């Protein structure tokens, strides 16, 4: 049997940065898994992902459905026709607590289906959640940009690792 779950690229920030981009992603895998552990200098902001083919799509082609737990309640929320995919809701990063977020981009290289993604994000001081996201495009994904939903930076030391998973 073929071994898979292959590291494609890792970025560890040596200085604060507003965004991190993985580009020229090979279409040779079946799924991608993106694992990120960012902190931010101040405040609490959601992680935003945009994807595309050659250039990231900033159109209103993203939507999510969330299932969250806050410690006092479970709830479910939805955002549609967004210009980016919100990967956190309560699992956002802060200056002291990294957001431990894993994003599964399933069938990312397909040119016949929209792209659905499964996200798990966690911030033990705020909440935990699972999110399903949709990018309404049949283009293969070969570029991913991760940023925040405000004009602020990820802190130095934040890590972003992209894996490829190949089916038999």
């Amino acid at each position, binding site marked *: 049997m073929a071994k898979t779950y292959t590291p494609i690229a890792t970025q560890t920030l040596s200085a604060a940065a507003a965004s991190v981009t993985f580009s020229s992603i090979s279409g040779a895998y079946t799924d991608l898994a993106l694992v990120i552990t960012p902190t931010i200098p101040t405040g609490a902001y959601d992680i935003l992902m945009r994807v595309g083919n050659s250039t990231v799509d900033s159109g209103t082609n993203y939507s999510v*459905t*969330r299932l969250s737990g806050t410690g006092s309640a479970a709830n479910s929320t939805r955002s549609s026709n967004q210009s980016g995919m919100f990967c956190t809701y309560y699992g956002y990063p802060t200056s002291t607590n990294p957001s431990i977020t894993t994003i599964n981009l399933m069938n990312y290289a397909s040119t016949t289906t929209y792209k*659905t993604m499964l996200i798990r994000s966690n911030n033990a001081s705020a909440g935990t959640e699972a999110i399903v996201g949709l990018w309404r495009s049949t283009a293969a994904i070969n570029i991913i940009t991760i940023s925040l939903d405000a004009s602020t930076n990820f802190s130095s030391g934040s890590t972003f690792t992209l894996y490829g998973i190949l*089916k*038999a």
Partner: protein
Amino acid sequence: MAIRSLKSGTFSRSGMVGNPVIMPGSYESIATVTVSSATSSITFSSIPSTYTHLQIRGITRSSSANNYDNIWMRFNSDTNSNYASHYLAGNGATADAYAWSSETQIRSFYTAGGTASSNVFSVSVIDILDYANTSKYKTTRHLNGFDNNATGTGDYAKGTLVLSSGLWRSTSAVSAIEFTINGGVNFTQYSSFALYGVN
């Protein structure tokens, strides 16, 4: 969860649904079924018992006249009432919990149905832990969802996220896995399940 190899001393991490990814070298592709024309069941058979866990990653859509349908999972062709399931589901408006016991299948997850928006598929990651153990029942966990960009009639049709678990009350090693859709409808073209072994 970090795991230290007694042989090499190196650390690795579990890649199951709720955890960070594993280190390469301990995750192997076993088999894939991709639907080229509509079919009512998808089966993995003759699964080797040489791994510690199994993981199934899938994309699905049904041919029904519904916005979504329930996917059923059976092991080793056992059609007796040996299965139980629990769901924690979010539909964008409410968080709901459901349970079923003594059924003839695990209710694995919701799939996008034939009336969901064009090109929308549900995606799933299913872990079958300690699947080859012959001294205990088998418990599964599932992370699944589809998002329909807030279209459809009813909250569940607009997008659903499911965390679920299943139980097969058998001590037999899992050697075959079958997926079907409630109502006997078909998986559509491009639906696909990929089976992986995890050590």
